[in-house]
């Protein structure tokens, strides 16, 4: 076959697009989208945390919260930490990663107020994900937003992990042989060999709304070809996230539009 590698990769991209669209229709057991955490189960709320955050009045105003906690601490009698709690600022909490912050919030009620501080989770979001969404105001607070962003990004990464490790043979879509054939052709896989694709994804950005999310990223297939711009869109149904749209386009490397237009 004389096709240029570029063409093969573009063909592969189309195959991936078709494949993902088909994949989105698949429901039922054996689907390997992650088991939803209890947090994402409810179809009406983004996470269980949002209920409690609202109920427990996660204070946007740190001072108000600190004063409240100080009253609590004084009443309860003071261990070192309870002395510390009024002093805990977003700055001090910023040393903790998300796991530690959650763990801290599980120790007692005073710690829960401190460790659920909206400002702390906003700072953590900026540190771990991006500062590009500085102007948004998540309706369920920043901790919930952090949790749902993490869930979507993990789901997205897992999709690529599966492709990378197990290749196409995991998906027994017998009716869609044409798609499978073009996939095999594009990536030069023999029958019976499910060798994975070395996808690497970078610059992952996620935007999560209550029942929809999208993730953009750059995907690198191999050393020789340039990266793809990729957008995946997810919808939240019946307590689970599903990928409903996938788009990838080649980033112009040499400014030659001729090859790109082959697949539109």
């Amino acid at each position: 076959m004389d096709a240029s590698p570029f063409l093969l990769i573009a063909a592969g991209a189309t195959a991936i697009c078709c494949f993902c669209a088909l994949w989105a229709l698949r429901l039922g057991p054996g689907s390997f989208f992650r088991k939803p955490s209890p947090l994402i189960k409810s179809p009406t709320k983004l996470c269980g945390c949002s209920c409690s955050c609202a109920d427990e009045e996660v204070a946007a105003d740190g001072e108000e919260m600190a004063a409240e906690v100080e009253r609590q601490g004084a009443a309860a009698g003071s261990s070192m930490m309870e002395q510390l709690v009024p002093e805990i600022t977003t700055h001090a909490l910023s040393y903790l990663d998300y796991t530690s912050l959650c763990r801290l919030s599980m120790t007692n009620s005073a710690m829960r107020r401190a460790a659920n501080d909206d400002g702390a989770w906003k700072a953590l979001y900026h540190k771990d994900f991006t500062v590009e969404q500085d102007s948004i105001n998540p309706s369920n607070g920043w901790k919930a937003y952090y949790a749902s962003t993490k869930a979507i990004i993990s789901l997205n990464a897992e999709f690529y992990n599966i492709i990378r490790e197990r290749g196409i043979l995991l998906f027994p879509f017998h009716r869609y042989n044409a798609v499978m054939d073009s996939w095999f052709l594009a990536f030069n896989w023999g029958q019976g060999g499910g060798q994975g694709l070395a996808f690497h994804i970078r610059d992952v950005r996620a935007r999560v709304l209550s029942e929809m999310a999208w993730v953009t990223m750059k995907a690198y297939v191999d050393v020789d070809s340039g990266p793809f711009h990729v957008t995946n869109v997810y919808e939240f149904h019946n307590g689970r996230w599903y990928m409903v749209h996938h788009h990838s386009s080649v980033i112009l490397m040499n400014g030659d539009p001729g090859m790109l237009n082959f697949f539109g």
Partner: protein
Amino acid sequence: METSTCSKKIVQLRSSDGQLFEVDEEAAMSSEILKNMIEMGMPSPLPLYEVDATTLAMIVESWNRRLQEKRGEITEAELERWEEEELLKSKEPDGDAICVLLAANYLEDEHLIDRAGEAIAHHIKDMTVEEVRDYFEIENDFEREEEEKVFQQNAWAFH
């Protein structure tokens, strides 16, 4: 005021439990609170109502070492190693790092607040919830039902 390497301006500090410490003035300037007191000309000994002698001893030593590093007598790496291994190592309940953090916060010593904060974060990183409670000496005041709810709400973080 000229600062020569032979600067010997000493300042006296008094801990909350009445013990006196003598410190290089330059070293004491690591604390914003003390810097203000010194610049305002407050009389010695400067009282530190919220720092006990044990903690103050550790903090004074850390200031001296920072001064040594500033003067090139020890390397930055050596300073960091000392801070990690001597100053902030204890993972025992109510350990050094917490005492230092509280004192550094009171004294407004940014560098030490950072170091202590990092050390604490590092200590609790792999602890269970129960171990974190012990470390900070805090009582679990959740009702059983509430505790289950809290655990469920945070489960996402532990996959």
